[in-house]
């Protein structure tokens, strides 16, 4: 029986295991299906990782290496090339690998760190032919950066998520012509820095409030794409069509937390995040099972993934060494223009100094305030100069404020100052 089994060896899994070790657990196993640890960071060869954490700008593989090196100083076991097939509420973990076959492992605690997968064309229903040449941006990134294959020469990108933006620059550097980045919403879904250095630097036009309305093919490969401007009801406006002559379409239309295992274990899910409902210490509705990183909610910064996962790892250690946290939970609700919050529940009595709360706003804000209320009274407010749906917000709610909440709930809302 392990003290802790961590599922997934990306940045979340590495940080959770490391922190559980620091907090005193001694039999820890990470199960990873890939042939190496590091998760999505292995294909993110661009820089921009770790400025908060290490005060320097690292590439994805360098950031991963820092955590893998830290782990080498511990006795944490890393089981590679092994897929987790099932977990149970009784904390059994079913795994399979070519080397050791099918095994059932038991643990006193589990941390879920399976990350995200990309939305595909099917998930968003683009009309037109179904030819070769349509890829998710992340699979194109994997082909190019790990395997060394260029997926196309003339590219249109649908969606302005970070992966798409990063790939616009990457494909350009490798000699492709990126004709356009097309975004359904009136704002970009990616980080501002990526718009600047991935699109503007290379004169790649960004069409906001536009979408692909047709994909056509010649000889089984993408040959043309039609793009329309959208009205306020997101309907194509006739006569606004732009035609692109291209061989490749990259989709960067969002990520979905990878939660088949979570659902099958009967863990309560949040339809807003597509991740598990979690408490202040990243514990799910099943005691002793925790979750952190992209499997809980999509993060744009790996630094926050590491910090969140360290809290989850420490909480797993607390669970094993001291037992289950007690206390009534406050329910976190989203008020005006807030899309979700993580955590969704806070056991105020268990909070030492303050609880970390992450959320995303639904639209772009200039001078604004984040308001915390218990439904009747405003308990705290935080000022922001700028907020956007593409940028995750973070606040620290002090224990003092949590204790003032009446009626068992706290509402987080955003508004202009």
């Amino acid at each position, binding site marked *: 029986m392990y003290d802790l089994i961590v599922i997934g060896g990306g940045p979340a899994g590495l940080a959770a295991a490391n922190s559980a070790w620091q907090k005193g657990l001694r039999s820890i196993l990470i199960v990873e299906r890939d042939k190496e640890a590091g998760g999505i960071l292995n294909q993110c*060869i661009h*820089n921009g990782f770790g400025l*908060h954490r290490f005060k320097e700008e690292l590439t994805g*593989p360098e950031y991963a290496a820092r955590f893998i090196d830290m782990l080498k100083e511990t006795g944490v076991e890393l089981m590679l090339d092994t897929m987790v097939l099932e977990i149970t509420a009784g904390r059994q973990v079913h795994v399979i690998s070519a080397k050791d076959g099918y095994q059932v492992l038991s643990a006193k605690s589990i941390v879920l760190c399976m990350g995200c997968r990309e939305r595909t064309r099917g998930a968003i229903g683009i009309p037109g032919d179904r030819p070769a040449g349509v890829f998710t941006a992340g699979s194109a990134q994997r082909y190019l950066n790990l*395997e*060394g294959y260029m997926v196309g020469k003339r590219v249109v990108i649908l969606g302005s998520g970070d992966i798409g933006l990063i790939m616009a620059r990457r494909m350009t*550097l*490798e000699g492709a012509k990126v004709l356009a980045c097309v975004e359904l919403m009136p704002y970009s879904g990616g980080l501002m820095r990526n718009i600047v*250095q991935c699109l503007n630097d290379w004169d790649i036009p960004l069409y906001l409030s536009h979408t692909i309305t047709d994909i056509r093919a010649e000889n089984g490969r993408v040959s043309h794409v039609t793009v329309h401007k959208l009205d306020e009801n997101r309907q194509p406006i006739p006569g606004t069509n732009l035609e692109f002559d291209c061989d490749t379409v990259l989709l960067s239309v969002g990520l979905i937390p990878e939660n088949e295992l979570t659902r099958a274990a009967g863990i309560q899910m949040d339809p807003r995040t597509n991740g598990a409902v979690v408490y202040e210490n990243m514990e799910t509705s099943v005691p002793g099972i925790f979750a952190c990183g992209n499997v809980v909610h999509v993060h*744009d910064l790996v630094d926050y993934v590491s910090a969140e996962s360290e809290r989850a790892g420490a909480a797993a250690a607390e669970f094993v060494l001291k037992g289950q946290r007690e206390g009534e939970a406050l329910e976190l609700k989203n008020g005006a223009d807030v899309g979700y919050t993580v955590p969704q529940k806070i056991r105020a009595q268990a909070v030492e100094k303050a609880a970390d709360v992450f959320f995303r706003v639904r639209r772009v804000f200039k001078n604004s305030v984040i308001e915390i209320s218990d439904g009747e009274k405003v308990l705290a407010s935080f000022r922001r100069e700028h907020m956007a749906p593409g940028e995750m917000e973070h606040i620290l709610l002090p224990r003092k404020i949590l204790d003032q909440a009446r009626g068992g709930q706290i509402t987080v809302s955003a508004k202009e100052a």
Partner: protein
Amino acid sequence: MKELVCIVCPKGCRLHVDEENGFAVTGNSCPRGAEYGKNEIQNPTRVLTSTVRITGGAYPRCPVKTDRAVPKAKLMDIMKELNGVTLSSPVEIGQVVLRDAAGTGAGVVVTKAL
């Protein structure tokens, strides 16, 4: 006054650079932003990341980066030089694969042990 977004880190602070006042920067949350604002108006630079061929490794490509920011106009020249590089495994993080890339003075280094 010029407005721009700091891209040194993903926080993306909105900077104001005053060209008439010695390129004084406001809106930055840290000193790196002030430096970026001054340079971006006068001489924009970027760190280049890419991959080079490698033989005998777990993958056929090895990720690399320039060891400092280089002038934007030189990025494509460095890409051309990198096309001519083939490494052989093992390589360590920080190992130099190209010195004085495209005459910028910058080195190109490995970012993953392979």
